């Protein structure tokens, strides 16, 4: 279902977040138009992964809103999970199952049906895994496992992709394969946010998350309440 209306955009409005009592970022606002790629940059621990998890609806921001195509998304709302496809640091693969079974299982969770066969073959071919389709993932190398996890972006249609360190463990050939997939997605009007240190070939604008580090004394609603009398 390619998105052809150009005006679809993902709007982040003064997002603030706090994890483990520690404020991570605040006042983070950005607009991402359809067909654009945003590289999340910034020092380790500045909240790139946290931001991706907020956009995926897994984590609630302490303030600010995320709206996609005009509708504001409340955390854990059904629309939240229908618009974004998220891949974190882990591969979410069952080692005892073959690659085909893992892909089918993921597609059934996300769409209720098995992965369409020709698309499965095409995506496996794209990531040079078609030979391993019927091998248990337990025997895969970490690079192969990571590519297997990336296959979800070829199998499931979601307007927004949220990728956390997608290029880790990829050699140059597979990194180009990923770049190709991303460019095809951008051409069809999708939105991609990728937290990565080495930019993939696809054209994207950098976005420095550490520029939104919190001011020193603000430590989030929970803890600042305890400093109020003599902050």
């Amino acid at each position: 279902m390619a998105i052809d209306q150009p005006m679809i955009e993902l709007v982040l409005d003064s997002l603030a977040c706090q994890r483990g009592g520690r404020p991570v970022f605040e006042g983070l606002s950005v607009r991402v138009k359809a067909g654009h790629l945003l590289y999340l940059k910034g020092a380790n621990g500045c909240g790139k992964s946290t931001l991706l998890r907020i956009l995926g609806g897994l984590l609630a921001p302490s303030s600010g809103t995320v709206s996609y195509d005009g509708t504001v998304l409340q955390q854990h709302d059904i629309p939240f999970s229908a618009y974004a496809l998220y891949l974190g640091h882990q591969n979410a693969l069952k080692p005892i199952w073959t690659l085909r079974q893992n892909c089918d299982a993921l597609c059934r969770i996300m769409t209720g049906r098995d992965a369409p066969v020709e698309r499965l073959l095409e995506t496996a071919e794209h990531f040079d895994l078609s030979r391993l389709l019927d091998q248990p993932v337990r025997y895969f190398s970490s690079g192969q496992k990571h590519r297997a996890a990336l296959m979800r972006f070829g199998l499931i249609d979601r307007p927004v992709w949220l990728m956390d360190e997608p290029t880790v463990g990829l050699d140059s050939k597979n990194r180009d394969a990923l770049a190709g997939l991303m460019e095809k997605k951008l051409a069809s009007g999708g939105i991609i946010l990728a937290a990565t240190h080495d930019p993939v070939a696809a054209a994207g604008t950098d976005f420095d998350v550490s520029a939104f580090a919190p001011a020193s004394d603000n430590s989030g609603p929970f803890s600042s309440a305890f400093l109020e009398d003599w902050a």
Partner: protein
Amino acid sequence: MHIFANPARFVRLADKIMPWAVVVFIGTLGYGLYLAFFDSPIDYQQGESVRIMYVHVPAAWMSMFTYMVIAVSSFVALVWRHPLAQIAGKAAAPIGAAFTALALVTGALWGKPMWGTYWVWDGRLTSVLILFFLYLGYMAIWQAMDDEEKAGRAAAILALVGSVNIPIIKFSVDWWNTLHQPASVMRLDGSTIDGSMLWPLFMMAIAFQAYFVIVFFWRMKLEIDRRKIAVLRLQEVSGS
């Protein structure tokens, strides 16, 4: 946030109430003990041992009351993310667990002279025993997670689930107790309590309540200061 949201205002309020609570505590405890030992009739069945009732029953009441405090503060903490409510459960739990343990111990000490055994699977004593496990579970979950705020929310969920189950447990234990009712077991609080016994019981109950208020405020101040320390250390570490 509510007027109570500000910990500093809460501490000032607590300091204002504290002297009154101490006065009430000393007064009711003194008068209650006097009544219990010198001015109430011995029960025609249980003899002197009825005096244990004057600590056993208030302790059992307080164990239930404290769990209610935890359940209410858990609800407020989960729904409104109220900073004080989040730590009220943690402050109240040890006091409640102590009351529950005391209810069990005094219940056993009261049972020994009457039935010849320390532990009787009486419906109420068994429910108090299960309540004690709920307290242990609640306190254990606070320590189980490294992030204190998340541990608080997990404990709040558990407290709410527990509070829904308490009436169910109470009902099923009483049902179970009546099914296996050995003929000779006497009801724990004897026959209907006659008037003059009510007064010492009432006094001791208020004394226990006042004790709870005093120690709860201390523990709340303790938890508030511990959060302050955590926040200050966090800021120290993050170089701000």
